[in-house]
């Protein structure tokens, strides 16, 4: 089943420059997609089309079959596609974690019991239930972003869009957040769209879409996308370290660190161990 359908979408902030050029894209329910691209490639602009924060200048975006231009169904669209942003401090409304998580449910006008249930479940889903009554101001970056994920989960979305949500985190915070969203994808069957410029995160997705100059240039499994090291480099992007080393050594079909170890080991005829 398709959760997201992008048809011939073009977008520009001003007359002079087109940010998105005729994008066509569908996202399957339950999938884990990474969208990568360098700064100014249009990846964040595209992400903001997924929950009607931006509306296409031409073409159309459908969330669960609903046209994002349908203002009357805005709540349905935004609850279906929850979004987490880059800066943890700038997206928080409340001073207490559980109030932050409750915000979306309060906006939807839900009953108090239902809000309570969703707050508890969302906090549990990101493993932050112990911090319900704490202030996010005293949390680490990774914890803040997990609260932000919980805040989006309170809408019970089918799809979670992370718009460079790992960009401002330290390595530990990034690992924490990646683990959380992978778990949500696997166990809660939440569709994940991860906008990032970290290749080691993109490798963990089922599908990688590369955007450059407002156009989709590559779309496929991480293995297929990173196979073409020269192309990825020509787009100003990094290649995952393991794949890069393997490429330098003239090895193929290597993506993860484990695969790289095995391939190098084989190359050395087992002498490396």
């Amino acid at each position: 089943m398709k959760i997201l359908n992008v048809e011939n979408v073009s977008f520009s902030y001003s007359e002079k420059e087109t940010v998105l050029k005729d994008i066509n894209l569908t996202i399957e329910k339950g999938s884990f997609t990474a969208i990568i691209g360098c700064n100014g490639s249009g990846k964040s602009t595209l992400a903001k089309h997924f929950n009607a924060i931006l509306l296409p200048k031409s073409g159309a975006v459908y969330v669960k079959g609903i046209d994002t231009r349908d203002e009357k169904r805005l709540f349905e669209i935004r609850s279906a596609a929850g979004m987490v942003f880059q800066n943890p401090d700038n997206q928080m409304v409340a001073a207490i974690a559980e109030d932050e998580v409750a915000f979306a449910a309060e906006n939807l006008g839900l009953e108090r019991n239902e809000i309570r249930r969703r707050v508890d479940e969302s906090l549990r889903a990101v493993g932050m239930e112990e911090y319900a009554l704490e202030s996010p101001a005293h949390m680490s970056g990774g914890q803040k972003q997990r609260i932000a994920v919980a805040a989006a989960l309170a809408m019970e979305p089918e799809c979670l869009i992370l718009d460079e949500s790992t960009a401002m985190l330290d390595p530990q915070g990034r690992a924490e957040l990646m683990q959380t969203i992978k778990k949500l994808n696997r166990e809660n069957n939440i569709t994940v769209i991860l906008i990032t410029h970290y290749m080691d995160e993109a490798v963990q997705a089922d599908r990688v879409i590369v955007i450059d100059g407002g156009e989709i240039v590559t779309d496929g499994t991480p293995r297929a996308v990173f196979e073409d090291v020269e192309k990825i480099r020509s787009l100003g992007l990094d290649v995952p370290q393991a794949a890069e080393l393997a490429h330098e050594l003239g090895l193929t079909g290597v993506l993860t660190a484990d695969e790289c170890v095995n391939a190098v080991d084989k190359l050395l005829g087992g002498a490396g161990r």
Partner: protein
Amino acid sequence: MVDILIGQYLTGSSALHRTDARVKIILLILYAALLFIIKNPLSYAIFLIFTTALTMMGGIGFKAVMKSIKPLRWIIIFTAVINLFFTKGEPLLSFWKIAITAEGIDLAVKMTVRLLCLIVASSLLTLTTPPLTLTNAIESLLSPLAKLKVPVRELAMMMSITLRFIPVLAEEADRIIKAQTARGADFGSGGIISRAKSLVPVMMPLFISAFKRAEDLATAMDARCFISGAPRTKLHEEKLTPADARAGVVFVVFAAAVAAAELL
């Protein structure tokens, strides 16, 4: 993380802390009204005792009380002096054109007690109520105004977001100042004007960043289905507890004592 105490809330679990903020606000208003209609010196004494008792019950130390009085000390002194010298009556002491009268002393003392009681009682409210609870209480109390198309909810939301962003912006200012200092900017010296001028390169980036943050926050709120003016529900129940009833009873007893003193 810069830990800035917003407002002057002191954590605690006294009966004063546990009382609902709305109840505290209403009782404070009644207290202030009562304070300005009493005439009998005995009533003033009751007020002083009651206020002191409340302060002790709230576990508020002498230092915290003095801290709240200090910024207003000139107003208290000025009011006392004006009343002391410019009240008409039988002069007790007089030199040149100034005379101290018995009525003057009486009024000066009363005004001082009034101001002190008022300042201490209002600080008891802010000392025992977290700022966010206070904004929620104000929202709840003003909610009838929503019928008159006053955007009470939006105002309360603005207040709580402001409170949330104060430490964030303070931290940012701190960072900018350090960055400028590292590049040779001098903030600590010179006269008032040169010091104020040296803050311009801090204020500009701070403002720009504040606008950027505001835009980010607006987008994040949009993404979570916030629509200004749309009906919202609340996670927290605003139910009154036995502690509130007790606070009401204590206040009624106090008011009765004051009324009795007035009728004496």
